[in-house]
């Protein structure tokens, strides 16, 4: 079979994945703490064609896409809401998940739940020094110092734990802006000199402009590949016509 057809089909499939990824980025252009995905296409040699009668056949390369999440910081938006926190530089907040697992996120929109515990918007407690942050209402407003220390009424309650990963590529994405690190494959370690800012939110790292440019690229590549497949099809049809009796 003509390998051009297969390469073409593979390429279309890859471009569709890319388009899905762009759509996901754009859909999350307003999601706080969202880190955009980037798509990289590599050529993967399927099999070196054999050298027949002294002629080396061209090797077939199939495009293989990979999604990546560069660790860049989003723009900071001043909200002046004391429950909004953002991390300066690299690192992630740690939350205690529903099944006891630790969830990591850069989404710094927090709330106080009915028990007075600082939780994220889905109700998972923020971890400081390994435990939740309790803020009793009678103690008045709370402040978060730049080193992440939460204090209320002049008394330090705990320091917000910020984690960084040695192998970020081995982390899993969970539903809801969370990063999971099953079996500590990502190598989570506490960041010693982390900086947390209160009253600011880190916005999504998605840049609509570069996503639009990528989208144009995808659309045009898709069109070209479609033409390529049609050409191949045409050639095959002509060959069948020419050699059929």
């Amino acid at each position, binding site marked *: 079979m003509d390998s051009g057809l297969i390469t073409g089909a593979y390429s279309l499939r890859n471009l569709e994945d890319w388009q*899905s990824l762009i759509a996901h980025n*754009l859909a*999350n252009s*307003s999601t706080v703490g969202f880190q955009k*995905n980037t798509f990289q296409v590599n050529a993967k040699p399927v099999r070196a064609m054999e050298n027949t009668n002294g002629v080396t056949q061209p090797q077939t390369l199939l495009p293989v896409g990979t999604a990546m999440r560069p660790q860049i910081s989003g723009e900071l938006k001043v909200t002046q809401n004391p429950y909004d926190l953002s991390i300066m530089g690299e690192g992630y907040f740690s939350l205690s998940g529903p099944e006891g697992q630790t969830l990591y996120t850069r989404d710094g929109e927090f709330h*106080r739940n009915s028990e007075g515990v600082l939780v994220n918007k889905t109700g998972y407690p923020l971890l400081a020094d390994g435990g939740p942050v309790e803020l009793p209402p009678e103690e008045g407003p709370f402040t978060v110092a730049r080193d992440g220390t939460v204090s209320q009424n002049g008394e330090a309650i705990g320091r917000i734990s910020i984690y960084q990963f040695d192998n970020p590529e081995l*982390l899993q994405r969970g*539903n809801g802006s969370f990063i999971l690190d099953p079996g500590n494959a990502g190598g989570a370690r506490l960041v010693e000199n982390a900086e947390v800012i209160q009253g600011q939110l880190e916005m999504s790292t998605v840049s609509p402009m570069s996503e639009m440019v990528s989208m144009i690229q*995808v659309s045009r590549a898709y069109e070209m590949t479609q033409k390529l497949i049609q050409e191949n*099809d045409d050639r095959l049809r002509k060959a069948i016509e020419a050699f059929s009796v």
Partner: protein
Amino acid sequence: MNLSLYTAASGMEAQQMQLNTISNNLANANTNGYKRAKIEFQDMLYQSQREAGARTAEGNSLPAGIELGNGTQVVSTARVFTQGSLSETGEKMDMAIDGDGFFEVQLPDGTSAFTRDGALKISSDGQITTSNGLPVLSNFQPFSDGVESVTILSSGDVTVRLGNGGEQTFRIQLTRFVNAGGLRSLGGNLYVETAGSGTPETGNPGENGFGRVLQGYLEKSNVNVVEEMVNMITAQRAYEINSKSIQASDQMLQNVAQLKR
């Protein structure tokens, strides 16, 4: 392929909800005691086509996989209970709470609701009510006839001087919640308790973290109009680019349909 269509649709839906929230905030920019709502998003479910760390045929492990997301979701429209600015009215029954706390209001069905709108009124029978005529509890005593002057201290102590030389004194109390953002809005500046807000706790104004009561002032809404306008621009643009990704996906599907002549 269709994944990107639905992903973009989820983005448009989320932006539509953001616009609804912004519109409501702007519409209430001049509502006394109104607390702005804030919409919060999260990304949605990932489909892993190739897991990072998976073994390849050559014996290596993949450095990165393909994870395709399903778009965005609205998680909450929480109220932000920051202090609104105070404006002086000079009206004796206008009260603003500076700090934490709510007035308790009795609903027609006998249950309690809570408000920070302190534009109170005196009904014909001496009862203290909201602008809508709902009786205000918060330890308010009905006024006797012939009120000459009313003085309310920031500690909540009320002294009513009567025309016949008599005096009536009582202390009002405020109610607060651990998580005021978890209250359910009833409309009419009223909120009711939910499981998420915690149970109401009453206390004296100015003590134990409760706010002070200021007579002759009203608390304006905490809506920042400039911020809402900027949010509106971002919401509108985000809506637009999401529609572009639907168009692009559509175009790609059209190309697929043209593959076979």
